[in-house]
């Protein structure tokens, strides 16, 4: 059974890795976008799957990563260095924001939500970063293929990290007890773990944002700190099932494909339908797709 799963995974990976050779253009973009959101959704799920609390603010790390990369690149330095620096600065920002992300429940949600707007306002006022008008970036050779592979590498990293965390001693303890207070009692240092995982997720968001900046010709506070980057991964995680390994992946795939199809139909209506979908989804499937499927499969037995 494990062998078959492994084989499938390897096949999928081979396919993804060699795809650019076969075809370019829109399909590459579509896959790129899907992989980007897989990275984001899985990275977000790291934190929320473990803590059970929903953060709506991870997009700020994406935005920071994008902007740092853009800034470095705009000023003539190596953009790849910019991506790494972007990730690093994202971690720094995350460290300062630790108190905010330690809030719980609804407080976390609305607090992190306003972080998006706060960051937006700050960057609108930063003249060195182009202010509200943004920056125009140079064009990278074969940007779509380069960023595709970079994002793919990021995806592999984030999935490996999640896998390792879930199967580590700490992950097991938290999952088995599904109650962090109990986990603390038996000696698991939840604060350190949660902070570490949080910083890691911020890093992934920052790096992904940086890579994405390589793929765009224009960056502005309104694109970099759009709540899309905070909210879509959350939605995908919830859709797929928070706390599961494959949930965010499935959620990301479903959502990206649906959004692309919707945007092909009519401009602007995709965001509206997305909002409606979110409402219907939460009301009908509060736990997500993957747990539902699991329950269904269990019933079959």
């Amino acid at each position, binding site marked *: 059974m494990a062998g078959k799963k492994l084989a499938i995974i390897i096949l999928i990976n081979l396919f993804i890795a060699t795809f650019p050779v076969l075809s370019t253009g829109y399909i590459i973009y579509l896959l790129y976008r899907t992989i980007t959101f897989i990275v984001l959704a899985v990275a977000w799920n790291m934190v929320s799957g473990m803590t059970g609390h929903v953060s709506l603010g991870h997009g700020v790390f994406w935005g920071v990563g994008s902007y740092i990369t853009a800034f470095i690149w705009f000023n003539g330095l190596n953009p790849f260095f910019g991506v790494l620096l972007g990730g690093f600065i994202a971690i720094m920002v995350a460290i300062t924001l630790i108190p905010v992300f330690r809030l719980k429940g609804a407080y976390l949600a609305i607090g992190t939500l306003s972080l998006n707007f706060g960051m937006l306002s700050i960057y609108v006022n930063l003249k060195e970063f182009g202010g509200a008008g943004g920056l125009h970036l140079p064009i990278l050779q074969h940007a779509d293929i380069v960023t595709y592979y970079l994002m793919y590498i990021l995806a592999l990293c984030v999935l490996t990290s999640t896998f390792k965390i879930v199967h580590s001693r700490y992950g097991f303890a938290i999952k088995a007890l599904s109650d962090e207070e109990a986990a603390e009692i038996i000696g698991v240092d939840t604060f350190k773990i949660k902070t570490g995982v949080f910083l890691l997720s911020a890093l992934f968001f920052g790096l992904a944002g940086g890579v994405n900046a390589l793929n765009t010709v224009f960056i502005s506070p309104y694109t970099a700190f759009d709540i899309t980057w905070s909210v879509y991964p959350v939605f995908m995680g919830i859709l797929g099932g928070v706390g599961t390994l494959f949930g965010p992946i499935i959620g990301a795939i479903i959502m990206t494909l649906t959004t692309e199809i919707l945007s092909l139909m009519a401009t602007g209506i995709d965001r509206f339908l997305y*909002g409606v979908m979110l409402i219907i989804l939460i009301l009908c499937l509060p736990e997500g797709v993957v747990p539902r499927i699991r329950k269904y499969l269990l019933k079959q037995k």
Partner: protein
Amino acid sequence: MLLFIIVAYLLFPISNSIIQLLLLGALVGGFYALIATGLSLIFGVLKVINVAHGALCILAAYFCYWVWIFGADLILSMFFTMVLMLILGLALYLTIYRKAMKVGIDPSLFVSFGLSIALEALMSLLWGADIRGVQSSYIKLLNLGGISIPFMLLLDMTLATAVLCALYLFLKKTLVGKAIRACAQDWEAISLMGINVKFIQSVAFILAFAMIGISGSLLAATYAFDPFSGSIYLIRSLIVATLAGDKLIYLTFGGIMLGCGEVFVSYFFGGAYRNAATSFLFIMILLIRGLRSSR
């Protein structure tokens, strides 16, 4: 509070400006308090954090704008907007919010969040992303003894005070009002005493939408707005509601403090930082709240 006084004292030489700022802050703050009542009512009675609050205010602003465009006077537009919002409130309650109450506080937040996204997208689809505002004859600058005040703000504050007083009396004196307050405190006990909780909740919800209708129309007349302006008003309402809680008086004071804070920040650091300051002020408040209450 003390910091306030110290700062005011240090700046005594420009005391005229200080008074002007305080007055402006109070006027703006009263308006914020009015906006916040809609949010507070829904949370108090339905235990749902209505993240769509900002977008709904903007929707009300659009309603007011469209009624006004067709020739109605501002006050008349406000009335129509209120009626429209009441109907919308009933519709939303029956379809979405009733179910949202069942799923719990945290998931219900996402329901209202989805609503806010859908609303903003719908508004920008239907009416475009242009900035709009209602121009009315009430827009002029008053000069009272050296202090200039935009008349519109004064009107806002007067209306806000009137509405808040009316709301206060309603909640205090009428049977339904008392039932609403009781529901906010402990709805289980209330239902045991034979009051139809569902009915009270729907009344409170619709009442909140009436407040949103009024706030939105005033907003349309006082400030420029576009489909995405809602978020700032949401954050302001959240600040006031979190700071102040459920009592109307506290809400008013909270609103005034926020208004003063914003005005002072604008004056000393430049208007551009106003929104950033508001957002981070909110986060500070949440953190303090989080530290104070137990885990």
